C-alpha cells in the first residue's frame, strides 16, 4: 500500500515578517509622525548595460521610460521604478511576483549588446516610511542631506543608514522606500523602531 504523502504549501516568509507588528506599532506610538511598513517580495532586477548603446534604448522602450542617466534619479513608469545605481547599473523594482515575467521581457528586448539582467528580488526587502517626521528619523542614521530641496520625489541614493548599506528612494507624498539587504533587515527595523522613540510623547 502506497504511503500517503502530504504536500506542504510553499511557505514564503519575508525578512521582516516577524517584525511586522512592532513596525505597525510605530505609527500609533509616534502619533502618526512616522509610519513604517514592510513592502515584501517586490520584484527587483539588476540591470547592467552600456548607457550609450542600443540596449539602453531598447530597455527604455520595454520599461516605458528611458533609463535615468543622471546620478541619483529614480524614474517611474506605471508600477515600475527604475533606480540609478551607477553609470551602467540600474535597479528595476516592480510588483511582487512579477520578476520572472519582467526578466524574460527585458532579456528578449535587450538582444545581444552584452546586457546583464539578474533577478535580485531576494537580495533586499523594502521598507516604506511615511509621515511628517520621516526625514528627521532617517537623518539620525544617514549623512545625506535629506531636505526636500535636495532629496525630493524621484531622488534615489545608495548610502548607509545606521551603518547598513541601503538604497533610499524618495516617493510621492513625502514617503521613502528603504531597500535593505535581507540579512540586515531585522537590525535596521530594530534601529528604526528605536530611533522613532524620539517622536513619541507630548512634544512630538
Amino acid at each position, binding site marked *: 500500500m502506497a504511503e500517503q504523502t502530504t504536500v506542504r504549501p510553499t511557505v514564503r516568509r519575508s525578512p521582516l515578517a516577524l517584525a511586522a507588528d512592532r513596525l505597525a506599532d510605530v505609527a500609533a506610538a509616534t502619533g502618526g509622525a512616522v509610519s513604517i511598513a514592510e513592502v515584501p517580495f517586490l520584484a527587483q532586477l539588476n540591470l547592467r548595460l552600456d548607457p550609450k548603446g542600443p540596449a539602453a534604448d531598447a530597455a527604455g522602450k520595454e520599461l516605458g521610460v528611458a533609463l535615468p542617466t543622471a*546620478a541619483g534619479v529614480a524614474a517611474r513608469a506605471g508600477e515600475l521604478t527604475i533606480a540609478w*545605481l551607477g*553609470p551602467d547599473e540600474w535597479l528595476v523594482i516592480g510588483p511582487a511576483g512579477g520578476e520572472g515575467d519582467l526578466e524574460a521581457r527585458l532579456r528578449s528586448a535587450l538582444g545581444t549588446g552584452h546586457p546583464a539582467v539578474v533577478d535580485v528580488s531576494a537580495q533586499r526587502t523594502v521598507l516604506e516610511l511615511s509621515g511628517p517626521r520621516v526625514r528627521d528619523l532617517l537623518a539620525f542614521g544617514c*549623512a545625506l542631506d535629506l531636505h526636500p530641496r535636495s532629496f525630493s520625489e524621484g531622488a534615489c*541614493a*545608495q*548610502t*548607509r543608514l545606521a551603518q547598513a*548599506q541601503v538604497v533610499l528612494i524618495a516617493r510621492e507624498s513625502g514617503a521613502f522606500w528603504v531597500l535593505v539587504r535581507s540579512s540586515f533587515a531585522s537590525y535596521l527595523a530594530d534601529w528604526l523602531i528605536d530611533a522613532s522613540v524620539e517622536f513619541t510623547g507630548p512634544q512630538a
Partner: protein
Amino acid sequence: MMLISCPWCGPREEAEFHYGGQAHVSYPEDPSALSDEEWARFLFYRDNPKGPFAERWNHSASCRRWFNVIRDTVTYEILAVYPVGTPKPVIA
C-alpha cells in the same frame, strides 16, 4: 571625517569609501623580465609624500566605482578628483 566628492554620486562622507593606495602604479610591461628586486619594488614600494598625493578610492557603499583623488597628506584637503585612466592633474 573627510568629505570626498565621488565623480558620480557627489560629496559623501569618508566612511562610504574604500581606500585603494597610490594611483598611477602601472603593471610592468613584461613581468617575467623583472628581477626579484624590481618585482618587489612594483609590489610593495609606494611613495609616502608629505603633501599632495595621488591615490585611488572606491565608492564602496554606493556606486562601487574606482576613481582617483589628489589629497594633501598634511591637511587632508582634497585637491582634485578625476576618473581612472586620465592623467594626473597638475596641482599648482
